[in-house]
């Protein structure tokens, strides 16, 4: 069976982002960009399913600027077989991303789409669920374990109270949580191989999707800074401060 893995190019998780002085967004010029960490986990899971003989083909998809080709090359180096870039310089919000992925899913007919649970830039946590709705497919979000058997997927999910396991009918949507797997390091030979793999480029218009944003960002601000605190010299001092100064115990 075929698996689709959408991967987003985001500001690297180690970067301390700065809000632009004019309040229109965060500084992304000259900032390290990487694949969204949850999407790396998604790629890894797809590759493991392929190594287990369950999956036959992995198609990575990214929606974004020309530079998102680098993100797709990373997916190919992890082990995706081919890639599709839906190129646009515009900001594409989750509903539009889901519509683009719907069009690609309809053309590619995958049995499974594995997405990240959340992009660490917009922190939306929406796209997978929206794609499932648009396709009319079941979903299992925040996965920490995926088992495929007989036209179903058995997925363990990380939820507020602990863990739960669902059985969902295929084709289906899965979104990854942190504990699903530990992505492999990409090796130099695999990076070289990835350069030769097929990467097609299309555009949202070619897929008939209007990407006009539904949410208008009026301003982006820095959150209030916490005032610097004090260092206490020992436990007795700490207890005294918590009792008499902070009055929280």
């Amino acid at each position, binding site marked *: 069976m075929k698996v689709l893995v959408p991967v987003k190019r985001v500001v690297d998780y180690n970067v301390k982002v700065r809000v632009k002085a004019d309040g229109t967004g965060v500084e992304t010029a000259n900032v390290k960009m990487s694949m969204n960490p949850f999407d790396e986990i998604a790629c890894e899971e797809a590759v493991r399913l392929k190594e287990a003989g369950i999956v036959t083909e992995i198609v990575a998809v990214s929606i974004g600027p020309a530079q998102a080709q680098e993100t797709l090359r990373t997916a190919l180096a992890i082990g995706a077989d081919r890639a599709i870039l839906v190129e646009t310089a515009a900001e594409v919000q989750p509903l539009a991303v889901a519509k683009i992925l719907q069009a690609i899913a309809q053309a590619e007919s995958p049995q499974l789409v594995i997405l990240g649970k959340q992009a660490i830039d917009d922190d939306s946590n929406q796209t997978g669920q929206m794609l499932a709705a648009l396709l009319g497919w079941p979903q299992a979000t925040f996965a920490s374990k995926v088992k495929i058997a007989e036209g179903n997927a058995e997925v363990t999910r990380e939820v507020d109270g602990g863990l739960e396991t669902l059985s969902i009918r295929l084709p289906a949507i899965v979104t990854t949580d942190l504990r699903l797997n530990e992505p492999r390091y990409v090796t130099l030979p695999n990076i070289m191989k990835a350069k030769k793999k097929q990467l097609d480029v299309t555009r949202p218009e070619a897929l008939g999707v209007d990407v006009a944003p*539904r949410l208008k960002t009026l301003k982006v601000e820095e959150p209030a800074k916490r005032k610097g605190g004090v260092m206490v010299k020992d436990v007795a001092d700490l207890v005294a401060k918590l009792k008499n100064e902070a009055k929280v115990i």
Partner: protein
Amino acid sequence: MATLVIAEHDNAGLKGATLNAVSAAQNIGGPIHLLVAGSGCGAVAAAASTIPGIEKVRVVDAPHYAHPLAENLAALVVALAPGYSHILAPATTTGKNFMPRVAALLDVAQVSDIVAVIDADTFVRPIYAGNALATVQSADAVKVITVRSTGFDATAASGGSAAVETVQAAADAGMSRLLGQELTRSARPELTAARIIVSGGRGMGSGENFSILEALADRLGAAVGASRAAVDSGFVPNDYQVGQTGKVVAPELYIAVGISGAIQHLAGMKDSKVIVAINKDGEAPIFQIADYGLVGDLFQVVPELTARL
């Protein structure tokens, strides 16, 4: 127009986060209806009807709502959507799971994790692990919103007397099924509702060592949380994780023990009223946001702290 708030519950009791979502709905203005979808959830509906400021509780009681499966819950909410200008749910793992489905089926954007309401169309939400706050305006006819509990004080749970109305169930989609649950049992308060939280990180070294934090938590009546590193290492269950991609908490007192203070962790706790950091590394970034920092070995400091309380 009215706002529909989707109640979160376990068929026995209402979850606290519902009260924060109601509070966000009050900030939007207009009548508020509460949807209680469950199975054998009469007690929840009765409790919900006493929340002041609710006009109507709409109850749907059917076996296929026993567990909040996204496919079924979303289809129900979409069927009830006409007539509402806003649909709100708590930004819990349940709300995050089914609400984007509702939004997509209504062909509208979702506004995730709002922390403030500016007006009926305009909301504030954190992005980039809370390192920036975006004010966003929605042009959609229906606003589908998830509410971050720490942004809104919980409304009162009793004193009101809303009408309770029974609503027809939607069809069972039959696409997914709950096979089992492994819920973390604890006598301590729930993380997101606790007044005091004691959290441990990789510095704890092992799951067994968490017993010293538990002793401290018991003394303080606190909940126990953790960093991702502590969860990934298997010291504690996944639902202990505080952070950008775990739980967001804002207790009166947050005690971070053996946690370095990565931005992803800070994203989940930096709105706590008082932060205490205990770390053996005086350079650890957690000290930059702590009100009270103590440099020391947690294996000495924590038992001593417990003894002195």
